[in-house]
């Protein structure tokens, strides 16, 4: 099972969706999500890997085969890959079985009987046994999705490419299919590139996530890495919700925002430089105002807004003596009303400094 290596890949057309010197390694057997807002170049990257586009610079390697370079591009049909499309791209004039069997035609030395058996087995795996003779138009969206998955997996590709495969499903089904795709990945272990703009999807499905912005990889890491240790403001804001506080480093572990002083876990701050801190809402602790407001990163504030979300309450709290308004996600009890005074506490370890430049 080979991995995929993208080396300084560039492809410009128009301005939107361009890829600009993108480098990325997908480990063998890994499921890596390409995550980013629309126009960040993630679909272009996927189509470069599939061989539908030729790069203007850079190379694509799978194992020890060089598949793309500006000089030569191995055509899609000779890349031993499979792809699942946003639209599913099922052929409406072929039955489910014919759709799934299509790729097997190009496998040498496979008898008709073998082919049928593999198709049946694969349809059983995606829980569509008995649907062989149906046409795609007769299936629900979720079932069509499963056919697309089966068609891609049955050829046992070296590399599997998925282009926002769940975006056409309704919310419940999407949730279910996330786990389904993860399950299939664990069963087959195919090296997979998964394009999505939905961070939740990326976090559930993938081993690692590459966050793309303007045609470049901003940060690669596990969901945990990206959530707890975002390196840039873009990643911090794109993965989950966060408070970003701009300030000036006054010591190795202190950041000043106006009169406010925020302590962070001992880190590599350079005194005198501008720095931005990311603080996740659920790491802002709220307490009754009567309690003492001493200690590191403890402030008084006033509740501006409160929204009940079931398992948490979402607060907006204005910090006294400052222009800062932070969001906090707190347990439903104790409950603070709008206008009430509160005490905020933020653990120094929860303040993550972000790279200034992007």
């Amino acid at each position, binding site marked *: 099972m080979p991995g995929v290596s993208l080396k300084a890949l560039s492809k410009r057309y128009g301005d939107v969706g361009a890829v600009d010197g993108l480098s990325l390694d997908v480990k063998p057997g890994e499921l890596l999500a390409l995550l980013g807002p629309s126009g960040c170049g993630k679909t272009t990257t996927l189509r470069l890997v599939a061989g*539908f586009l030729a790069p203007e610079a850079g190379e694509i390697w799978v194992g020890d085969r060089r598949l793309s370079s500006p000089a030569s591009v191995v055509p899609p049909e000779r890349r031993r890959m499979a792809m699942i*499309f946003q639209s599913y*791209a099922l*052929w409406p004039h072929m039955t489910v079985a014919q759709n799934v069997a299509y790729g097997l035609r*190009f496998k040498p030395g496979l008898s008709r009987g073998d082919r049928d058996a593999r198709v049946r087995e694969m349809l059983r795996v995606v829980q569509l046994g008995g649907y062989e003779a149906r046409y795609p138009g007769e299936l629900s969206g979720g079932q069509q999705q499963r056919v697309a998955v089966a068609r891609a997996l049955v*050829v046992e590709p070296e590399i599997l490419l998925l282009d926002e495969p769940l975006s056409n499903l309704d919310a419940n089904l999407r949730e279910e299919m996330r786990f389904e795709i993860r399950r299939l990945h664990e069963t087959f272990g195919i090296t997979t590139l998964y394009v999505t703009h939905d961070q939740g999807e990326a976090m559930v499905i993938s081993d690692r996530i590459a966050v793309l912005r303007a045609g470049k990889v901003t940060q690669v890491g596990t969901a945990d890495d990206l959530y707890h240790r975002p390196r840039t403001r873009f990643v911090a804001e794109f993965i989950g919700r966060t408070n970003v506080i701009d300030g000036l480093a006054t010591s190795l572990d202190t950041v000043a925002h106006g009169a406010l002083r925020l302590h962070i876990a001992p880190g590599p701050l350079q005194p005198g430089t501008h720095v931005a801190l990311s603080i996740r809402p659920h790491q802002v602790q709220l307490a009754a105002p009567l309690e003492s407001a001493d200690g590191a990163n403890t402030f008084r504030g006033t509740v501006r807004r409160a929204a009940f979300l079931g398992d948490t309450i979402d607060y907006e709290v204005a910090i006294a003596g400052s222009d800062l308004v932070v969001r906090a996600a707190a347990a439903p009890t104790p409950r603070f009303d709008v206008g009430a005074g509160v005490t905020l506490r933020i653990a120094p370890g929860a303040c993550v400094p972000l790279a200034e430049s992007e």
Partner: protein
Amino acid sequence: MDRSIAVWVSAALALVVLIALPLGWLGWLSVSGEHGVTLAHYRDAFADPALQKALWNTVVLAFWVGLVSVAIGAPLAWLTARTDVPARGLIRGLVLASFVTPPFLGAFAWVMLAGPNAGMLNTLWRSLTGADAPLLNIFTMPGLIFVVAIYTFPYVYIMVSNTLALIASDLEEAAAILGAGRLTVARTVTLPMVLPALASGFILAVLQALALFGSPAILALPAGFHTVTTQIWSLFQFPPKVEQAAAFSVPLLLATALLLDVQKRLLGRRGYAAVGGKGGQRRTIALGRWRWPALAACLVVMSSAIFLPYAVLAKGAFARAWAQPLGRDNFTLGNFTFTFFEYGSTRAAIVNTLELAVLTACIGAAMVALLSYITNRRLVVGHQLVAFLVLAPVVVPGVVLAVGLFIAYTRPPFVLYGTLWILFLAYLTKEMPVGYAQADATFRAIPADLEDAGRVLGAGRLRILKEVTAPLAKSGIIAAWCFIFIGVIRELSASILLFTPSTKVMSVVIFDLKEEGQFGAISVLGLVMLALTFATVALVQAALGRDVLGARR
């Protein structure tokens, strides 16, 4: 290198030769004199008072046809698209019938209906009132305008009804909820949204009238006046003045191009209809006590375009004397034997027409399929130019195209004049845009994903074309084939300049028969032509699963 490239490139090159050769020669000959470039031909053409008169007549004809078409087509479209007028399906079907009826057949029928002496409506009028003077005289400018307009209004109808079908009632209701009354909604929302369609329908109607040869030849020539197209034709009569004809053709070509450009801008700038959001419902407006009067009005239009002309053609085909009542002693099948077995050129002409129609449709459908695939998937450098060229013949009136082809193919390297091939080229060129539009819509509806999905799994491009694209495009291409076929069997304006005694086609023979006053045989051939047309239309509808006028079923 992709093996398929050769296929794409040669299709594109064939197209360039097909279009550029006749138009290039046309332009060149119109300015070439014995001593190099000259404007003498233009001077000769436009200084001639007779030609000036023809030009003016064409302007009058085209303008009024445009207006009358809007006056008929727009209300009909609104009635069938938005109201509960009875028998909407029937009305739509009749509009379609009028759309595919060869206009020159309609003109013949109206000669039999409203000729000043023997016209049946006039005979009826005289017997009812005892008057001497005819009620109607079709051999006049108003008569010509009328006959052209009743077969041209479908262009307006199609534009307007397809637009209305795209405008969701939500848009009107959004205005109503803000306090606009019914009339205000119509004035401030519906009408402005339909206006571009209306204007572009007007322009299409004008263009039809500009390019038409048959109806003016049948109605204007006996009335003693010319239009540009008949004038070009008469410049081709012995002794032919080809250069003058070329010079006279170029302005017609430019006017058409200009008008089409205006039309495109009208539609393009504010393509409102395309902005249709999701789930737009279209609610029908109840006409109340106006339902039946509205239907009656529709049927009056349809009787002049369809019922009366078809009836008179049917009668003419089975009557010994077409002007007399069709009784037992006036009934005959002789017209059929005469047409098919006795009259010299009919059988050869029918064979020629069918051969040409099948050949043109097959080659044309294959070409437009290839070309639209190229432009849709951007397979060659310069695919925009391909799209432009394939649509270019739209601006070339049949007569003008014929002049260009005549010039291009009466001299080396391609001497085709006198063979069926020159007619084939004329038809292929002329019908290309219609076929292309159909094929283009077909490929547009087939997402590239469907092809990409196969390629990733290991199939090459040509294989995907065969196994995925072709099966999906089949019905659309069959429809393109039919459109081309229909276009060819009714073609007159180019054929009339390009035929020779051994290469006559049906429309030309009908025209000959008119010179001889053989109305029975004209009627028979007309019925054959209509039968072929409607059979083909039925085939299209079956292939596309919708009607030819372009709305969902």
